[in-house]
């Protein structure tokens, strides 16, 4: 077992890189400790080079959207090759994707959908994560999604599934606090009880973002301000040894720079004030830096 390098445990407050945010990034780079790149947009050399140029000098992590880890069957070998190539070219600190199904065999669903939370899915997803970690030489973080329904056939709760998955795959957790907030609102459960089930010391990164009500449902929009309840969840996770990296996601409805800066500063304030220490060990067998680099 290896301890996580201290710099990775306290990466700071970052921003999800989006083309529309380039001007803001160029002006306010000092407010941003790291960037999260959407790996799926970097499969072509042109975009990859342009993106790396824009984020030069800052650590990056790579977030993928379409590995569809919970789809029955093996990983798409070409997609896996893409993850490998992007992760190595960017020199990212870790890679992540969702506990979700985005495609089934020949067809794109076009959105993240929840998996059937049974033991066989658990084993299969764990094997796929191990494979990604082997191929990329980087730790993998699994992210919780927001959902309007859960498919039938579940044998355990989402929190139990994530906890067991992290242990089985020896991976980290990318805890999307907005998704947790949205799910807790829509499905009427206590998000703090959910947090207590998770191995919070494996939460290397959290996502914070905004949501909006649509009739009686709270929708994970990534287009609205981060609500206070999400910052409160951040404080709790941070105080219990997680959230070494906090990432603000904004995909649409981009506000003036000042508003995003304000959210980054608010996140930093919570992140700093709830820190429990500079260094602590983690029970993660991390392969970092990659053996071949």
């Amino acid at each position, binding site marked *: 077992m290896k301890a996580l390098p201290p710099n990775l445990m306290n990466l700071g407050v970052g921003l999800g890189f989006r083309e529309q945010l380039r001007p803001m990034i160029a002006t306010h780079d000092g407010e941003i400790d790291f960037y999260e790149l959407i790996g799926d947009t970097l499969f072509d050399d042109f975009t990859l080079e342009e993106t790396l140029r824009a984020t030069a000098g800052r650590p990056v992590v790579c977030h993928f959207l*379409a590995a569809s880890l919970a789809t*029955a069957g093996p990983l798409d070998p070409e997609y896996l090759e893409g993850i490998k190539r992007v992760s190595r070219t960017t020199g990212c600190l870790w890679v992540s994707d969702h506990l979700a199904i985005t495609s089934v065999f020949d067809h794109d669903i076009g959105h993240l*959908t929840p998996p059937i939370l049974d033991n066989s899915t658990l084993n299969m997803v764990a094997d796929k994560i191990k494979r990604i970690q082997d191929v990329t030489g980087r730790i993998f973080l699994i992210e919780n999604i927001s959902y309007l329904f859960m498919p039938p056939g579940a044998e355990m709760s989402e929190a139990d599934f994530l906890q067991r998955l992290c242990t089985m795959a020896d991976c980290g957790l990318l805890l999307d606090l907005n998704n947790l907030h949205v799910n807790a609102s829509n499905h009427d459960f206590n998000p703090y009880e959910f947090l207590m089930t998770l191995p919070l010391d494996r939460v290397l990164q959290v996502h914070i973002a905004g949501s909006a009500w649509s009739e009686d449902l709270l929708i994970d929009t990534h287009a609205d301000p981060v609500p206070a309840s999400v910052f409160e969840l951040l404080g709790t996770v941070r105080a219990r040894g997680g959230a070494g990296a906090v990432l603000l996601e904004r995909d649409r409805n981009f506000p003036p720079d000042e508003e995003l800066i304000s959210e980054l500063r608010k996140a930093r304030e919570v992140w700093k004030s709830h820190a429990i220490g500079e260094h602590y060990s983690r029970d993660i067998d991390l392969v970092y830096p990659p053996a071949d680099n």
Partner: protein
Amino acid sequence: MASQAMQKALARIYLDADLREKIVAHPSVLNDLRLGQADAEQLRAFVLANRRALDRFAEMIGRKRALRLASVFPISSRLLGADTWASVCKTALSTSASRTIDEVTLCAQVMNGLDNWRDLPPFRDLVTLEALKATVARLVAPEQQMFNSSENWRPKLNRSARIARLDFSPTAISAWASAGGVDHLDREPTPVLLHKRSGTYQTVQIATLRPLLAEVLMACDGHRMANEIALDYSRGRDELASGIREALQGYLELGVLSFEQEM
């Protein structure tokens, strides 16, 4: 593991409003989904308990796809205006809602949806034109393929590629746009290729084809050998046959074609 049949059934239920209705009204439709009795009953109970959430989810997917389409065709969507563009997308999305569909097919349907604006032919070709610009900006490195022969393979048009036909030439429409519009625009049937590289996310590429090349690509059914296709379409001209073989390899590297290796 959740069975493949179950996952397929769920994917269809997420996207297909008609199927959801049928499952509620006529449970026998579940027999067509190749599920066991227990799974079928579980699935029907799931649909009954989550009808509203499933409808909302389908709406979300529709909106997301419309946004994606607007990002693939930014100029066209702006020029057509929000209402017309929404109408075009709605036509495509309502068709695609009845089954699972990939983004390439969806783009092809948007282009077909533009057929309804026959009196506005420039827009239809503008879609192609701006997508061509995107293609030029996004030239990709050839993939490393386990390809070890120039001739003994059976090319097959990839599932993420489609060939469509436009009524007007993008070149003509470009001239039309530069001139600020003219009274008359000749129809000039033009085949176009839409494709998405395997593993990429939401980036559909579009390119015009010469008619002969369109015919060649449509002949790539995974059964006929590359050499056989090249000879058939070269009409006895060795140089042309060689060009066709090279073009097929080029499309293989771009992910437009996959292949069946000769045993």
